């Protein structure tokens, strides 16, 4: 995994606890890097499991799960995008199947996947094109650190670390 990511400016790479999260690696990326990383994973024979978004206080966290049949290494790519301009490049040109996942994510959260060849509603009806049912109310929305665990960090930049900072402090004080 780490060799794969060579040459890609990641925001944060961390090992995950397989038992509690079901994944081996978690990689935070900037939106601009997602296509490149997806291509690398494609070349390394990873398959795309799903694409979806989380509505959190910091913005939208778009998640991509990748898996590989001959190695037990489930990877999640995480891209944090802002609410004001929820736009992210599409990876449908690399993984054809991503097209529908992206359409579904657009239906539910209003994330705009730039370059998706057919970004029309998949599950919602056409009249509801501007209605995104999975957007949360302010009361229900949570912070990223309440939902996710950073795991065993390999490399990480300041911003991502800051997002998780408090949670880790709490864990430390519990111990």
């Amino acid at each position: 995994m780490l060799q794969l990511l060579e040459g890609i400016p990641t925001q944060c790479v961390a090992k995950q606890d397989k038992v509690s999260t079901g994944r081996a690696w978690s990689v935070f990326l900037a939106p601009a890097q997602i296509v490149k990383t997806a291509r690398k994973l494609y070349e390394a024979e990873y398959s795309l499991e799903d694409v979806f978004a989380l509505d959190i206080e910091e913005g939208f966290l778009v998640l991509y799960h990748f898996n590989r049949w001959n190695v037990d290494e489930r990877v999640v790519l995480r891209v944090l995008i802002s609410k004001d301009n929820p736009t992210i490049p599409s990876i449908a040109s690399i993984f054809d199947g991503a097209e529908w996942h992206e359409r579904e994510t657009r239906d539910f959260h209003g994330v705009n996947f730039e370059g998706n060849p057919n970004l029309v509603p998949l599950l919602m009806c056409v009249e509801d094109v501007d209605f995104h049912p999975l957007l949360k109310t302010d009361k229900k929305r949570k912070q990223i650190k309440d939902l996710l665990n950073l795991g065993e960090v390999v490399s990480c930049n300041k911003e991502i670390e800051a997002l998780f900072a408090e949670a880790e402090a709490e864990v430390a004080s519990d111990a």
Partner: protein
Amino acid sequence: MAAQGSVVQKEMLTAGAHYMDPPIVNIQLAQDLLDVCRSMSLWPMTFGLACCAIEMMATGMARFDMARFGAEVFRPSPRQADVMIVAGTVTKKMAPAVVRLYEQMPGPKWVISMGNCAISGGPFKIKDNYNVIEGVDTLIPVDVYVPGCPPRPEGLLEGFFQLQRLITGKRWWPVAAEVKG
């Protein structure tokens, strides 16, 4: 969310507003005979929308054997069918298709609303429901409701008996004995 208005105007779809040629031989006896024939050879449409459809398939298979009651020929085309079994969840996106299929069926035609979803939205009738039509009878006229989630095949068969009674005015099959214990 507010209750969903129907996609197509209701008046267009009620049984009464459909145009049907008057019968060639309009004698009551002939009509009664024809009605019996119709009720004993109901052709349902091959059309399932969710989990209830599994139970509908079971009803058609050997164990419950709907063929015993004259309704086993599931037709793949609405133009050959005279019963629509709405078996499952009707979503907003599916609604226009359901309505179109209903309109494509030649008269006389009947609709069985199978399962809680089709009757009222069932488990999806919640405050945050955004995509499920709460009751297929807001779209098309329904003759028989078969409640359950999903209804057992016996339930669907009972629905068919009810439909046969609607058509002919008579229940044709013995009532199952009550099981004690």
